């Protein structure tokens, strides 16, 4: 079948072979990495193209003398004159960096009016360098924190890296690192993400209008692309922050042909805080580390191989200060590896073949004297992706391909010895095949209409080995059901996901866009909290647990002003979600074979309007985004069946980022964010329980228990803060660069809510409410260097 398709495309290509094609790569002259979104156009501006994510461009030009201009924000524009004699030629460009503008914190990837003319809606991109210029906490630049400054993407709250896109939950974001799924993207219980910014090349976020080549999650795709490595010379980058340091080395393996990149990071929070801890706390220890490695080799002009790997862990050690026999260690983290083969069949057809392995696991070791046991859980994927990119002519840009994932879910394994009893218990592992086939075509109808029509067919099959276990209403296992052998099909869910997007170009600076998507999600995060915990489990769709389903309708008006100096847009979206999953109030998710019966199923609805304005060039750059939105959930078993606000429903959300280049040495960035307070559930009444009489104190003893009538009916105070940072370029030569980042987080010392708790005051005879807030005004400094 594949051969037939390829033959078909080759025939189509032959029909168009009279066209004169100029193609090639636009690369950063220093990094030797492709520049995505660079513009290659004829000097008269009549013909042009933007480079893709690899830095690849292709132009159809007439024979004769042609002058091309190559431009990219922050780089010196180049011009070149070539003579076209009828043969297709390749021309590669290396652009040199402009030191001033590379420090500007602007969204890259959209240099001209592409935001107006393309069918893409709701897609944004940030580079690793831009993330570093933003104000940070504790001197730690963070990719996930940076993207929450974009409209439609909301932060989970103070200090967290969780993000929520257009009313979706945290598990509805597909987080990819060089195509490998990262199931838990946080270190330090969410305070930092697993992405080392030194190793990050850029970050792409698709929050709506998801094209057909992506799927698997309802709300968004976050793709973190790591640096490829410099093919020309060896470099060392790094940074020293208040709680961790990072380093990255890159260089050629064979000059001009292959390169490597390795990066590492470790926190020293454990060592730094020891002097401040009590003796009891000193017996605890926490740290995290991560490694990135990437290498590529250009086999020839048509073939390129690249490998990317990641390994990171968080470790918490505990030794009882009062009982030397008692100790435990909890370790959790991700591992991922991908091997990518790029192959160009001809000037119109190329492909990417990617083999991926990824894993998330949690391991707990408990010891008390001669007794001890281990608990572990996790999820593991083997994944292959095949993407074809085909451009038969100027009017069509076709992508097609497929993906297969073999999932292994390990909800819990316990082994050990306690007394006379040997522990060898496990929650049933689950296995599943996930398939997807897709095809999409971006095509033009006349001069004003551009459409992107795609279809994605998905199949999810839970397979054996698996033995059904039957429970009574009290959660007691009362027997076993059907046993499935290896590869026996337990349940299959097929689905079709149409993806449509269209642009009507009103004029060269104004367009109207619309999109429609239907998406399924077969994996679900078992959590009862807003934050993602190491012990949270990913569970598959099964006989009982139906796949999540969402539709998203979006409409937007895009307009640029002043020769594309300013970009503005207004987007409205409407997103109903079905088969949403919650857990029964008070459900116990830990090592629970009966987990599926703790689940309840309902619906969600989210809609809103996003306004966005951005200044792209000049000394002052930045953007302001405003979102008005509403997001609700409805479950028959919760809130008496009435719809209630999603925890992260946020009526108003504002983000302002402004960056100013004072001179060649100094750059300043100001960030302001405002969000309506999170919806939370607070008790409406209480009761005294478990009474006893203390004969020594001669008074009754009892405990107060809270009663909850309504879900998420209370609003925490609004969240807002202003941060500022200054980057001082201390030294910049061809061989060495060093800079300092000075940040002040929460400039006006706003007490933003982290959580609320209540305490009965027995002297004043009243219940007191306290709000805990994490970060007051916090200055920090980080030193970054490059050799």
């Amino acid at each position, binding site marked *: 079948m594949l051969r037939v398709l390829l033959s078909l495309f080759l025939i189509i290509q032959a029909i168009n072979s009279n066209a004169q094609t100029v193609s090639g790569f636009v690369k950063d002259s220093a990094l030797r990495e492709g520049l995505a979104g660079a513009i290659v156009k004829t000097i008269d501006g009549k013909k042009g193209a933007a480079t893709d994510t690899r830095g690849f461009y292709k132009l159809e030009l007439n024979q004769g003398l042609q002058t091309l201009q190559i431009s990219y924000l922050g780089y010196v524009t180049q011009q070149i004159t070539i003579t076209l004699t009828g043969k297709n030629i390749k021309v590669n460009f290396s652009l040199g960096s402009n030191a001033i503008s590379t420090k500007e914190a602007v969204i890259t990837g959209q240099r001209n009016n592409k935001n107006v003319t393309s069918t893409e809606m709701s897609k944004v991109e940030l580079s690793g360098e831009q993330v570093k210029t933003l104000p940070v906490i504790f001197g730690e630049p963070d990719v996930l924190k940076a993207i929450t400054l974009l409209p439609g993407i909301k932060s989970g709250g103070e200090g967290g890296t969780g993000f929520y896109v257009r009313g979706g939950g945290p598990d509805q974001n597909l987080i990819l690192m060089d195509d490998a799924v990262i199931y838990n993207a946080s270190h330090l219980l969410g305070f930092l993400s697993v992405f080392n910014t030194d190793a990050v090349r850029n970050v792409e976020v698709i929050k709506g209008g998801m094209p057909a080549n992506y799927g698997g999650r309802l709300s968004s795709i976050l793709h973190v692309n790591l640096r490829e490595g410099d093919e020309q010379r060896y470099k060392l980058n790094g940074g020293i922050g208040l709680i961790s340091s990072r380093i990255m080395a890159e260089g050629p393996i064979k000059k001009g042909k292959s390169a490597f990149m390795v990066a590492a990071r470790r926190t020293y929070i454990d060592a730094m805080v020891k002097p401040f801890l009590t003796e009891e706390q000193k017996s605890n220890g926490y740290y995290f580390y991560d490694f990135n490695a990437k290498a590529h080799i250009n086999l020839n002009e048509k073939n390129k191989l690249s490998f990317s790997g990641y390994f990171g862990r968080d470790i918490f050690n505990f030794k009882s200060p009062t*009982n030397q026999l008692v100790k435990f260690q909890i370790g959790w983290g991700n591992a991922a590896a991908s091997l990518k083969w790029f192959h160009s069949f001809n000037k119109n057809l190329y492909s990417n073949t990617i083999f991926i392995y990824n894993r998330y696991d949690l391991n707990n070791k408990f010891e008390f004297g001669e007794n001890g046991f281990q608990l572990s859980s996790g999820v593991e994927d083997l994944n292959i992706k095949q993407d074809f990119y085909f451009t038969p002519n100027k009017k069509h840009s076709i992508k097609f391909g497929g993906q297969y994932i073999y999932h292994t879910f390990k909800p819990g394994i316990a082994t050990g010895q306690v007394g006379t009893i040997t522990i060898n218990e496990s929650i049933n592992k689950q296995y599943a095949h996930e398939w997807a086939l897709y095809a999409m075509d971006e095509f033009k109808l006349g001069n004003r209409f551009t459409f992107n029509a795609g279809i994605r067919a998905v199949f999810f099959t839970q397979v054996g080995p698996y033995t059904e276990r039957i429970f009574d209403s009290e959660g007691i296992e009362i027997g076993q059901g059907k046993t499935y052998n290896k590869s026996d099909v337990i349940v299959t869910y097929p689905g079709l996901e149409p993806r449509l997007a269209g642009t009507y170009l009103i004029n060269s600076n104004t367009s109207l866009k619309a999109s429609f998507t239907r998406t399924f999600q077969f994996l679900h995060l078992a959590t009862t909290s*807003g934050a993602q915990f190491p*012990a949270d489990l990913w569970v598959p769709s099964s006989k009982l647990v139906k796949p999540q389903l969402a539709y998203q309708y979006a409409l937007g008006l895009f307009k640029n002003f002043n020769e594309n100096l300013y970009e503005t847009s207004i987007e409205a979206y409407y997103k109903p979600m079905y088969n949403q999953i919650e857990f029964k109030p008070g459900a116990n998710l830990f090592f629970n074979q009966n987990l599926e019966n703790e689940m309840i199923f309902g619906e969600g609805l989210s809609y809103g309007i996003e306004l966005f304005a951005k200044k792209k060039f000049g000394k002052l750059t930045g953007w302001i985004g405003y979102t008005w939105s509403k997001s609700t959930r409805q479950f028959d078993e919760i809130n008496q069946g009435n719809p209630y606000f999603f925890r992260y429903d946020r009526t108003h959300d504002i983000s302002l980022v402004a960056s100013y280049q004072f001179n060649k040495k100094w750059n300043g960035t100001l960030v302001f964010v405002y969000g309506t307070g999170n919806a939370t559930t607070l008790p409406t009444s209480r009761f005294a329980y478990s009474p006893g009489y203390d004969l020594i104190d001669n*008074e009754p003893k009892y405990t107060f228990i809270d009663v909850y009538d309504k879900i998420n009916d209370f609003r925490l105070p609004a969240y807002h803060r202003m941060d500022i940072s200054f980057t001082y370029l201390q030294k910049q030569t061809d061989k060495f660069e060093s800079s300092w980042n000075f940040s002040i987080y929460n400039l006006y010392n706003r007490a933003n809510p982290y959580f609320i708790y*209540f305490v009965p005051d027995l002297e004043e*005879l009243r219940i007191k409410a306290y709000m805990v807030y994490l970060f007051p005004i916090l200055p920090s400094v980080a030193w970054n260097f490059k050799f």
Partner: protein
Amino acid sequence: MKNILYHILLVLGMILLTACEKEITVDLPPGKANLVVEASINQQFPNLNYVYISRTIDYFNPDLSLNGVRNALVYITPGTIVGNDTIWNESARIQMIDINTIPGIDLLLPGFSGIYFSTAISPQIGIPYKLEITAENERVIGYTTIPKVAEIDTVFWKQELDEKNGDTNMFVTFKFTDGPEQNNYRLAIQNGFNPYLLGWGSASQFRMFNDGFLNDGVVPYSFFRPFNFGDTLSLYLTSVGRKEYLFWESYARAANNGGPFATPIIVKSNIQGAIGSFTGYGVSFRSVIIR
């Protein structure tokens, strides 16, 4: 697990030396006043056969008392299982008496209210019991059975000198035998000289566990935190039914709920018409002086 993580976060919070708090005003709507019942029977200690009745109150109501409900009609009836049916022996029905009607009790046990008690009841293992309450025109009904007792076999301890403060730490372990059937336990620990518990709530600590991990064998239960040399330690290892276990397990989590990752926990009542539980305890008791 969540508790462990919460403690990690607390440590990190202290590490960061930045976490702050301030008192705020919260305006909550009034809640509905529901009946609350805790009914306990066991085969060994007559003082632990009682029913406590109260009502929920608005969260910010300054009343921090037991808020007991008086003048209720409370009955406990034993039954007999015949096939799949239970026949209730109405002639053996026992009425529980409001202790506040006993002259002088308010002086003897000030602040205790809503407690109903009877010396006439003598619960037995394996017998089903029915609870009936009529209070303020509301009716509550509940059922329980006292499960088989898991006897405490041995209690032993290890002595260690705490070099930091010169104390002698006593690390206690007891062993009991878990049977092959599914068993659920509520362990009450009374630390200090006290001749008897006046209500389960007068115990120092509680633990909830079942035999999901450790089934059918001699199970050692170790206390990670040490006791002091010379302490009197009373252990009430109680076997409870599954529904009762689910209630007390949810109660334990609700009682310790708090912090940034707290989620609303609704206790899993096993009675109809009220929040709460009717629990039959199969008690194994051991008291030791640790020295």
